Each structure stands twice: as C-alpha cells, then as structure tokens.
C-alpha cells in the first residue's frame, strides 16, 4: 500500500492560523473534560469520605488492568443540561481491559447528586448496554446510585428507551450469553435493585453496599416497620440469607479483586478474524491535524491529508481515484486492522453516491469494517441533479450503508448536515462508535440557512399584515435565532445530548478507532445481504 504524499506546508500562514485556533479550542475542551472527571464541590468529596467510599475513578483504577487504555464514552454528556450541575450525567461508561479482556463498564458517579439517574444518565447507560450487545462485550456494573431523580421522573422512567431499557438490555445480554458482573458499592434501591439481580454475578461491599426494592424510609411509610439498612438489604443478609447477593467483600479493594477473579473464570470466545497487517504508526504526525482542519468550518480541505495522519504508515489504497471525486473511498489499516474508509471531499453528487454504495458492497463482500469521516454539507440540490436522480442515487447509498453487515465507525470531522449525515452513517445508522471533533457542527441545515429561513417566514408573515420592516427590525428577528442555531449545531450540544460517543482531540482519533475496531471483533460478522436498490 502506498503512502499518501502530503501537500501540507507546516510553515504556511494558514496552517499556523488553523493550528492556533484548534489549540485554543482544545485547551478549553481538555479543561472541561478534566473538570467533568475530577472537579467536585468539597462537600461532595467529604460526603464520600464520610461514607467510606472511593470515588468512581479510583474504583476504575482498581478494576482495570494497569497500563491499559480505557475508551471513555460521552465524558461531557449533559454538559449543556441541568445548568451544568450534573457533570458526565453522573455516570462513567466505556470500554476497558480486565484480565486481558475487553469489557464494557457502567459506573455510577456518587460524587454527583449521589449518583442519581437523570434523563441523560439513563440515555448514557442504555447506550453503553447497546454497545455491549452489538459488540458482545461482557459488562461490569459499578452500582452506587441514589435512584431516579424524582423531579424529572417522567424523563427517566416510562418511555421505551428510558429506565426500563437498562434492565431489558441486561436481560438481552444474558440471553445472548454475554456475562455481567455488578459490584454494589452503594445503595441499589427500587429499579436499581435489578442491576445486580439481573447480573450473572454480584458482589456487595460490606457496610456501604445494599440492595432493596424499598429503602428504610419507604418501608416505614408503607408498613410502619422500622428496619436498618444492613438488616434490610446489606451484604451479610443478601449473601447468607436471601441469596440475592453472590459475594461479600470486606473492602472496595476486595470487591474489585473478586470481580477480576470472576472475569478470569469466563470462557474465552475467539474473536472474529479480519485481514490484518503489522501495526505501524502514521508516517505524518497526527498533531498536524490541528493545522489542517480550517478554523472556518466553511473552508474546504482535502480529507486525504486527514487520513494521512490517522491510518497506519499513512498508507492508503484509493479506489476509483478519478470518479466521483467528492467522495474518497479506499483501503487502509488502523492499529493493523484492515478497514474500508469513506471520507467526504465535498458535496455528494450522483457519481460520488454511486461510488460510495459500490465501495461499501466491496467491503461487505470481503468482511472489511467501514470507517466514515464526515465533512458533509449534504447531497447536491437543484433541477439538474433531481433530473439525474440524486434522491435515487442517495437512496442506493443509504441502502448499501444501512444494509452493511460489517462493523461501522464514524468520525464527524467537520460538517454533518442534512441527509449527508445519514448517508455517512450518522447516529441513527448503528455505527459501533461515533465520535466528533470539537469544531464540528451537526444539524438539518447550517445555522445561517436555518436562521434565514425562519426569519424570512416571519418577515413575510408581517408583510402580509401590511407591516414594512426596517433593516434593524429584520436584524432583531434574525440575530437571536441565528445565535440559538449557532449554539445548537455545536459539538458540545451534540455530546451533551449523547448524539455521539464523545468529543475527541483529533490526535486521539486513531487510538479511539483502533480500540473500537478491536472491541467490535468480539461479535461475529454476518453474511452480506441487502434490501432493494432503486436502480
């Protein structure tokens, strides 16, 4: 495979200006991420210490193999919700390594609102369990939650993908022969009691862990019975009387060493074999991405320059290099795994859509996972293109993409607008993981277009009523809408709402993809089959 010849001049003024802008963004991003992970009000830290509990990050350290990577999902979930008072949505999720095995981890963060489940907490847990199901990853739950956040109970409880889905997914995991362990390091009350009880194995930490359908205050209110936490649902009672708990741990350290021991008892199923090559770092420095991604989202750039800083040895075998050139298709390796890459180099036209559809079929045929790099403002519009059947060719691309049986991974590298998001495996299309770069934008249309459209509707309505508007009045209508839309399309909104699995420093993309691909190979790859292509 040949190396991409980079045309980038790292001394050019554009490169330097882009680099400065991205570095500034990343400084903010890393600071926010650090605050979400580690900064808590003193009273919350004191409360955990008083309860004799470790923080969630220390618990992860005890659980995971030292020196191995942890692919954390949606660190900044809920960052634009609840006035920013629920960092990370009060839960940590990700893929980590325990006893040399890839496992999915769901860990409540009791330093945030006692680990209560907010609507975004539930969304984040359900997503993690979907990841476990799709990739057949064993799950380790670290339970320490105050329960559903009552003032928002309708946002956590009744709907299809809310609270019940957590337990439903646990059942589906078990049914699919995927093991689960729950480490109970706090109270599991009401619905929360089902997390450890639906797990194949559970460990209760003496003194701090407890499981009950109704806690002492509720029992008192309901029946008048006065009973303490330990008698009602503590480690000793459950592991020796009720059989609800499997293992009693004397300390947190003991609990996590037991969990590790249980993982080492599991049968190892061989991973799916795909084409691999010897691992090679990219020839071009991934940090050069900072100078390649334009500081203005609207400026076009060559996605090959991005690929050169992500794939092994910067080597890329480009497919149909002279046809449908706004869509780059080709083969490369990431962490030694052979992948098929689809990357936007402009708007999707008829030829680029057909090329993408054809290439995805090739990849499915030879079981090559697909990686999408989105910088897409949409499928081309206009009479000429409708006559050529752009909607029909777009449909073919969707049919090939949605019908793919190989694992798919998506990086929203810059723009993700309109149906282009669909064709390029946006959130609804089951990418095994989907990450966003900090400057990337997502929406049905651009902020300017949306604001203009909405302002025009309003202006015309007023004109019909006989009102002529001055420039200032028009601006007064348009500007607030524009400001709101600008915020709405930002990566922070997307990641807050869990439309992605997290924002990435572009230089970390290669490792996030490598880990995602490796994890995906725990699941088998089906034989290719599709729906009807509108020819």
């Amino acid at each position, binding site marked *: 495979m040949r190396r991409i010849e980079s045309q980038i001049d790292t001394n050019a003024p554009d490169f330097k200006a882009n680099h400065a802008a991205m570095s500034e963004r990343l400084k903010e991003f890393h600071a926010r991420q650090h605050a979400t992970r580690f900064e808590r009000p003193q009273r919350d830290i004191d409360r955990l210490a008083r309860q004799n509990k470790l923080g969630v990050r220390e618990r992860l350290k005890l659980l995971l193999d030292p020196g191995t990577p942890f692919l954390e999902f949606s660190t900044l979930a809920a960052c634009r919700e609840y006035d920013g008072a629920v960092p990370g949505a009060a839960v940590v999720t990700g893929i980590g390594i325990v006893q040399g095995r890839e496992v999915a981890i769901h860990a409540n963060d009791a330093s945030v609102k006692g680990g209560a489940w907010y609507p975004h907490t539930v969304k984040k847990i359900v997503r993690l369990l979907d990841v476990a199901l799709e990739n057949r990853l064993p799950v380790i739950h670290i339970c320490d939650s105050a329960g559903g956040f009552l003032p928002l109970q309708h946002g956590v409880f009744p709907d299809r993908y809310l609270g019940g889905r957590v337990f439903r997914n646990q059942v589906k995991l078990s049914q699919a022969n995927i093991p689960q362990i729950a480490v109970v390091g706090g109270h599991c009350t009401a619905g929360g009691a089902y997390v450890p009880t639906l797990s194949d194995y559970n460990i209760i930490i003496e003194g701090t862990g407890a499981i009950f359908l109704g806690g002492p205050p509720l029992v008192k209110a309901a029946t008048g019975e006065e009973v303490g936490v330990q008698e009602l649902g503590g480690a000793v009672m459950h592991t020796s009387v009720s059989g609800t708990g499997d293992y009693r741990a004397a300390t947190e350290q003991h609990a996590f060493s037991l969990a590790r021991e249980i993982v080492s008892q599991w049968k190892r199923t061989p991973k799916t074999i795909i084409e691999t090559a010897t691992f090679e770092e990219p020839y071009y420095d991934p940090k050069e991405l900072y100078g390649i991604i334009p500081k*203005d989202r*609207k*400026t*076009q750039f060559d996605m090959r320059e991005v690929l050169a800083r992500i794939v092994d040895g910067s080597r890329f075998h480009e497919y149909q290099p002279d046809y449908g050139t706004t869509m780059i298709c080709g083969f490369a390796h990431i962490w030694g795994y052979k992948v098929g890459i689809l990357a936007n180099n402009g*708007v999707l036209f008829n030829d680029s859509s057909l090329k993408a559809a054809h290439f995805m079929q090739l990849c499915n045929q030879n079981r090559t996972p697909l990686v999408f790099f989105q910088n897409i*403002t949409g499928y081309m519009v206009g009479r000429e293109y409708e006559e050529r059947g752009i909607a029909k060719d777009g449909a073919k691309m969707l049919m090939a993409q949605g019908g793919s049986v190989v694992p798919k991974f998506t990086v929203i590298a810059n723009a993700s607008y309109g149906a282009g998001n669909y064709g390029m495996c946006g959130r609804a299309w089951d990418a095994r993981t989907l990450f966003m770069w900090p400057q990337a934008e997502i929406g049905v249309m*651009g902020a*300017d*277009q949306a604001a203009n459209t909405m302002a025009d509707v309003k202006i015309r309505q007023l004109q019909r009523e006989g009102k002529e508007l001055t420039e200032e009045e028009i601006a007064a209508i348009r500007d607030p809408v524009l400001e709101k839309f600008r915020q709405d399309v930002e990566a922070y909104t997307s990641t807050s709402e869990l439309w992605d699995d997290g924002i990435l420093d572009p230089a970390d993309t290669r490792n996030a993809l490598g880990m995602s691909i490796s994890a995906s190979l725990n699941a088998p790859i089906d034989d290719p089959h599709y729906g009807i292509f509108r020819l």
Partner: protein
Amino acid sequence: MRRIYQIDGEETECWLSHDGRSMILNTPDGAIPCQLDAAEAPGGYTLRVRGRTYDMRVAVGPDATFVHLNGQTFAIGRVDPAERLAGNDGGAVDDRIVAPMPGVVVSVNAKAGDQVKEGQPLLVIESMKLETSLTAPRDGVIAEIPFAAGDSFGLKATLAQLAPEEE
C-alpha cells in the same frame, strides 16, 4: 509483479521464492539458490550463495534497509511498483476552470492579464454551505475571469480562463 528494489540508487527487479529445498532469488539474470541464517551478533546473518559463505549485517530503517557486506554498506530501498509504473498522469491540463456545481462567487483574487503560478488561488466560490478555493491548473496568464464577487453561476460555467500556452 516482481518487486523493485533500489540498491545504491540503481533499480533492480527481483522476487524471492522457494523450490521446496532452498530459497531462490529470481533476478532478470536468472534464478540463484541462496540461504540466509541468523548469526549470533545482533543484526548478523550468514549468506550462502553458489557454494560461498558471506557474513553480513542488516539494519532496517523506515525508508531503506542497510546491508553491510564485504566491507561495503549498501542502502536498499523498496520501490512501490504501482507508483513506479504509473507514468506521468494528467497529460494536457485544461486551460479553463469550470464550475463543479452551481453557486456564488465569494471573492476573486486575480484579473485578466495577471501572471499566475500553478496552484495559486484564483477565486473562492460558495455552494452548499461550503467555500471552495479554485486554483490555477498550470503556470500562465489569465485571459478572463467573467464573474465578480456576489455573482451567481451555473454548473459547468467557465469561472476562469488562462491564455493559451505559446508553443
């Protein structure tokens, strides 16, 4: 395709195979049976060819492999055949810049009569929320840029024209 190696600047094609008994190096001058065994020293090997034995040292770098043999060091680079044999692509370059899609001109950075270099930005267009910079396809003189900033244009409209190259 045989592999192409560059040994001290000179290209040679060869392919290593095995006939069931020993390794065979297939070269344009014929097949040479040979055997390479690791020696004790780091990077050390013993090469047996045509009844003779050579001690050699090998060091592998990212762009070339260095072989020390008979008091001489050879730099051996691997040439990608697909790249080496691709020939010159392109051929005649079009003198016109044609609109890849309908859109609006954002800015014009050159005017008729200007001497421009290949790759120099001539104008920036916007279409589908994307600003694309269109660059000179070759060195030359601008004959015409028919649109001004703010003008809209259709698909395949000529956005810039270079003066024909003089023979």
